[in-house]
């Protein structure tokens, strides 16, 4: 398990990095935390000719709240997001979900943007991005563009980024008042990719769900948002009926793949069970005014 020979660059500016990506095209790979890329290299499943290490680009190391958005630069480690009180306040779902990513050691190195760019269909953070409606900021030498999360994930391990683009920032909208968020997951062990996970937000006023967001990991080729289940929550009443309707929508509409860990019907079943659990939790948080995650 030794990688094939590759050329290694560690630019100190975004411009240099973009230059390298433009020069080497699909033969180049960005190295962020390396928690997904290095295993692939060592197994020789990935054989890039060039690695562009972005760990020396200090300008990508920022976490900022700005006009209703939490901006997460490409070098921000998952552990930072997990521990920062501002994140817990602004995007509580992100703070809660990130703890399900591997273990502390992994999160010390792994980056938020790396997880998004890696686009594992069972990963937590892409589901969060879809649930809250995050936007990905991609830059290439040609310029910058913003890609809504729902358009960013195009397939298993596949995104809308082109080979010469760097994901420089992920932007998460800050949670508006009245919303409660929650993330639940079933995995074989703590720290594994989800057999199924659901990220949810509900906006509650006078005890009624006014708005809802639901996104699933491990339930399809990309993180899946389920507008039909959201509608069921919004329009159903009393809450128990709404929940039942949302769960049955989840079971009906999701098309998870089977793999060695879980059959498709188990995943579908989990999606239903977890929908109920996550919405109850989010609802309670919205009502309590806790806004989001456990402290």
């Amino acid at each position, binding site marked *: *398990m*030794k*990688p*094939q*020979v590759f050329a290694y660059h560690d630019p100190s500016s975004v411009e240099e990095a973009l230059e390298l990506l433009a020069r080497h095209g699909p033969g180049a790979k960005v190295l962020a935390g390396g928690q997904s890329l290095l*295993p692939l290299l060592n*197994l*020789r499943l990935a054989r890039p000719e060039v690695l562009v290490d972005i760990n020396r680009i200090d300008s990508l190391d920022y976490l900022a709240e700005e006009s209703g958005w939490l901006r997460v630069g490409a070098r921000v480690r998952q552990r930072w997001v997990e521990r920062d009180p501002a994140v817990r306040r602004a995007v509580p779902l992100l703070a809660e979900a990130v703890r399900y990513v591997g*273990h502390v050691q992994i999160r010390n190195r792994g980056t938020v943007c790396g997880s998004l760019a890696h686009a594992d269909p069972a990963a937590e953070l892409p589901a969060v991005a879809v649930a809250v409606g995050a936007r990905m900021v991609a830059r290439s030498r040609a310029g910058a563009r913003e890609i809504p999360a729902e358009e960013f994930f195009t397939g298993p391990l596949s995104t809308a980024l082109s080979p010469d683009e760097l994901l420089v920032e992920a932007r998460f909208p800050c949670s508006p008042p009245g919303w409660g968020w929650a993330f639940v997951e*079933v995995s*074989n*062990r*703590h*720290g*594994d*990719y989800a*057999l199924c996970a659901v990220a949810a937000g509900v906006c509650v006023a006078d005890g009624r769900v006014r708005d809802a967001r639901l996104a699933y990991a491990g339930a399809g080729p990309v993180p899946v948002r389920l507008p039909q289940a959201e509608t069921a929550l919004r329009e159903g009443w009393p809450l128990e009926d709404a929940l039942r309707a949302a769960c049955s929508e989840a079971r009906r509409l999701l098309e998870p793949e089977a793999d*060695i*860990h*879980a*059959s498709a019907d*188990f995943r579908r*079943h*989990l999606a239903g*069970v*977890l929908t109920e659990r996550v919405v109850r939790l989010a609802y309670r948080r919205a009502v309590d005014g806790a806004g989001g995650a456990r402290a």
Partner: protein
Amino acid sequence: MATRWLGSPIKRNEDPRLLVGQGLFVDDVQLPGMVHAAVLRSPHAHARILRIDARRASQHPEVLLVLTHADLPPALKEPLPKLIPHPDLKHHKTQYALAPDKVRHVGEPVAFVVATSRAAAEDALELIEVDYDPLPAVVDLEEAAAGRPALVHEDIGTNVAAHSVQRVGDYEAARARAHLVLARRFVVDRGCASPIETRGVVAQWDPKARQLTVWDSTQAPIPIRNGLAALFGLAQKDVRVVAPDVGGGFGPKIMMFYPEEVLVPLAAMRLGRPVKWIEDRREHFLATNHERTQIHDAEIALDQDGRILGVRTVFLHDAGAYIPYGLIVPIVAECTLPGPYRVPNYHAEFRAVFTNKTIVSPYRGAGRPHGVFVMERLLDLAARQLGMDRAEIRRRNFIQPHEFPYDVGLIYQDNAPLIYDSGNYPAALERALEAVEYDRWPEQKARYRAEGRRVGLGFACYVEGSGIGPYEGCRVTVEPSGKVFVATGVGTQGQGHFTSFAQVVADALGVDVQDVHVVTGDTAAFGWGTGTFASRAAVVAGSAVHLAAKAVQQKALQVAATLLEASPEDLELADGYVRVRGAPSRSVSLGEVARAANPLRGVIPAEWEGPGLEATRYFAPPRGTFSHGVHAALVEVDPETATLRFLRYVVVHDCGVVLNPLILDGQIHGGVAQGIGGAFFERLVYDGSGQLLSGSFMDFHIPTAVEIPEIEVHHQETPSPLNPLGAKGAGEGGVIPVPALLAQAIEDALDDLDLEITQMPLHPDALFHLIQAARRRQP
């Protein structure tokens, strides 16, 4: 004997060194000029090799040597040695160092490359062209037994390597008069040990001295040395095998040989340079032995009081592609099955079957978890049918403390009669039940239920054969410095021998345990022995250590008696001195005694048995000794997500006299963790073409500290009469009953569903489908 050290929970001598990274594992061996090997492995489960072209690899600028079967010397072209033959093992097929014309499992070595770096060696592997003609893969065990869809070894005309029957009494007659006969099929699927340190070999050849030194992460350095000497035509004295620190063995490292163990020395001899090969994790999953798959069709016959009249098990054992290690696993399984119960009539019959999968040899438990799973499940299900309490059915069938030695009537893995030496089975169960408050369980369970929680209580009993022969030996030497050096042939893979053996010696010689330095696993330090397996090191090597230490003690007294002009009976050993009892000022240090025992002039009396404060002794037990225990646990089941959480885990463990409770607890904790892993989290999943789909830690889920509960250990001590320490083996007890216990606990937690768990390991998806099926059956 004063036992200041033995029996105390002292910390391990080896830990400071290991914890600060000063251990010496095989990959830590760095030699000048060392080069690196990599192995080309079959990507197919079953295929004919039509052509191998290694020319491009040989031309790689960093490549020094490429070996295929054709390049091997005659002795290495033969199949590797057959270990542990058995009359019922008709087809003792063993693997080749490099496959000649056919590959029989994914991962089987096909070519071997040595280059200046491992990375270059891996580059070169990709340059070797092999044309395979894939054959149908033999994956399903029952199909395999029927010879379908192909023969793993065509020349024997069958996939059945062995058919073996053992009988006690007359099961058919017992069945005919039974009140209840309950039959079930039990399936245990593959598992593997996953030691943190994978295998690894470094070899160095000194062409002038004609001496070969091999560092090998093995459990059996001495047999490896003897085998290498025979293969390469060297004297045993000219081969040194060192198993330095070994980062976990658990059974698979007892093999002899794995192909790399002969290929690395061969390459070192060909090249005249040290060669290193370190198995990577991906190789480990494919090329280090697995265990566990067995399908048991089992039956129990009972009278109306729940007394066992007889048991029958007819089972298939998946041997994998070859069967180098013989029939140990299925024999241990059938011999463990009766457990602590009186089984007057017993019929055990198995077929060991070749499949196109990784080779099987013992892994911690080694058949015992299977036997216990079958027996405990039969009792649980029978109790249910009889409307009897599951503890009560066990109480009625236990062998009683006065019945020892108890002859089970079978022949065990050491070819000796299976005779339990001692034990107290009822007491162990009662202690475990008390610890989990079994008598109050119905109310407690109802309370959980009222909170909406599904919690089940499970427990399981087992007897663990351990401490088998043939022998181990030990040399104890006191040097003039007063320090004590102990050398034994068994290897150490984390069991704490550097401490427990030191405790035995420290007590005998009256020295501080930290002044006792133990060397294990270096054939240059001690050249006789068999290895660390079957929970035998503490019992067999420990007893040899004890005998050698006692001999040194006697000699110290004799020598000191001359120095102190006293009679040996009036002397005592304490604090590193030999003292006249009652007159401590009249004393001489052990170091001085050692010096006096090796004089430059004068006469050595015959009773000294030679010079020096040193003695070598061997211990050869007549047969194995039998530990036993009971585990009990509270397990919470989420029936909607089919996941588990252990709330409590209690172990009552009886391995005779406890040498070091701290080390023993560690053995048990590790065992339970491995048992839980093997029962619910870890799975080796093969597809229909014989590919392993869970061959990395991404998919093979070893539980972490999050999944493993606090483990509460109670020690019960029933000494063994078979060895001077009264000790019994403790290496495997932690894992053995876990599958049986877990099945019972889940059934208890979901008792309204009337589940029957007859397969292991489980995992969330399997449990989900069991629950769904049970729900569908409900009215």
